[in-house]
């Protein structure tokens, strides 16, 4: 397998983050976000690359990666559609919205479509309770989703 390499731009970013906070370890979360942007997930290999770049033991990098849900340990599609199905959202039909996404895309929860474009996940409260049902697609929130809204959103992502 080819060895993973961080692009120069990412290396510079991580080195700056290491100096930005009171302790070097505080740069772990920002560095993991950066690595996930580059590699798509945080695999054991990515952990090793970061550990080397940051001069922090791999076990420390890994424990932080494992603790937080936003770091993907398994591959996700180019568009990661995350639907909150916690209490407020569930009451206004978000679980049906989540199933609708799966059905329209033709994929099960937490799977990746064959073309690598989509993953649909049910997630916990995203602080969008008054504008539910909602979906977070990568960094962006899409709120007040109706069936029509789901169709339009998927068209935009194609």
């Amino acid at each position: 397998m080819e060895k993973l390499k961080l692009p120069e731009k990412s290396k510079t970013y991580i080195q700056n983050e290491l100096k930005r906070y009171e302790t070097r370890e505080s740069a772990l979360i920002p560095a993991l976000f950066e690595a996930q942007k580059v590699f798509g997930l945080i695999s054991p290999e990515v952990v090793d690359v970061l550990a080397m770049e940051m001069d922090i033991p791999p076990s420390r990098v890994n424990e932080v990666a494992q603790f937080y849900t936003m770091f993907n340990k398994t591959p996700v599609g180019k568009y990661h559609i995350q639907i909150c199905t916690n209490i407020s959202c569930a009451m206004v039909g978000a679980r049906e919205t989540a199933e609708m996404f799966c059905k329209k895309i033709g994929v099960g929860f937490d799977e990746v479509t064959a073309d690598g474009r989509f993953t649909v996940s049910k997630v916990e409260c995203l602080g969008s309770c008054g504008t539910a049902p909602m979906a977070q697609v990568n960094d962006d929130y899409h709120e007040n989703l109706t069936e029509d809204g789901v169709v339009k959103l998927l068209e935009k992502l194609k």
Partner: protein
Amino acid sequence: MENRLLLKHYNEPGYHTLDGYVKFGGYTALKKALKMKPEDIITEVKNSGLRGRGGAGFSTGMKWSFLPNNNEPRYLLCNADEGEPGTFKDRYMMELAPHQVIEGMICSAFAIKSKKSYIYIRGEYYKPYKIVEKAIQEAYKAGFLGKNILGSGFDHDLDVYRGAGAYIVGEETALISSLEGKKGQPKLKPPFPAVQGYLRKPTIVNNVETLAAVTWILNNGAAAYRKFGTEKSTGTKVYSVSGNINKPGVYEVDLAYPFKDFLENECGGMKEGFKFKALIPGGSSCPVLTAEEALKSTLDYENMASLGTMLGSGGVIIIDDKQCMVDLLNVLMHFYHHESCGQCTPCREGTGWLEKLTSSIGKGKSQLDDVATLDKVARHMMGTTICALSDAAALPVVSFLSKFKDEFEYHIREKRCKVKGNCHAQAHH
């Protein structure tokens, strides 16, 4: 009626920018504060009666006064890790008025003699993160942050830090662990953060809304703030409201506002075809109230406590008659099980059992005595752990069972749901 103290100018276009904020009186509190003695600011905040708006409702001025009297560096952390299900007011406040929070932070930092502060914002809040980041840059440019702020001799640096998805990080000691680059796990108190917090230095952690309220209090005075609310619940509170109502959203009303009026006026009443059934007044960790209890209640710390629940974060979750309480409790237990950090056995194991039991009751695979078992497991989880997550999972269970027991028993006996709605807890789901 809404009483917009903090949200007064939120509808003005551009209020999230420095220019927009200054146009409507922004940064006058800072100018005032820098001319005051730090201890006088603490006294003013104490006198205002302001209580922490993140959930615990502890006196803000009192929290500040717990800082030891020494020369150690102090830190101020703004808790913007809003994750309590049903709560979204901090997101709203950061998106629409980041400078109000930043101004409150600089004033507070001056009061507690802190030279460095952080806004810790949950990772999913990417848009508010970008808005806050930009607002901080603007504040530096205008001389409100950095060295010798407005010629006062006070230096202060503020940075924003992005979390990565963990409900428990909203607990202040866990937030500190996370900011230090560790797993976001809570620590035993004492020592409290005010004595030993970030990097083991004295640290104050305050919620977004609390810090925004400091700005208002310094502008208008403690006495003006006390004019609203009650003796023990002073001022206004910003609520996030969700459920099948006509106008879900963020509202600011005086403390002690009657819930009935709030539901009818601010929330626009129930959506057509839905009846009001129950209320979770302050985010998912607060015990549930029946409609009858809720309609007689007022939204303040004392009244909620007298009803055996809490005002919490002000995450008002309105439950309608189409909802099955078994289903909703199962949704919540799935959440707490997922979010337990795993340090303490009663929580790590207990939340798992709560999820399993509510799930099997929903599917009709339980026996009637499982209702008692569920209650027992929950009660054994209270007061036995490092932080409050275990209690936060147990409290809803005990209250759901004491007030809606018939729905649980119906699921077990009839192997289907009593409520005509869309219960996902049933076997076919």
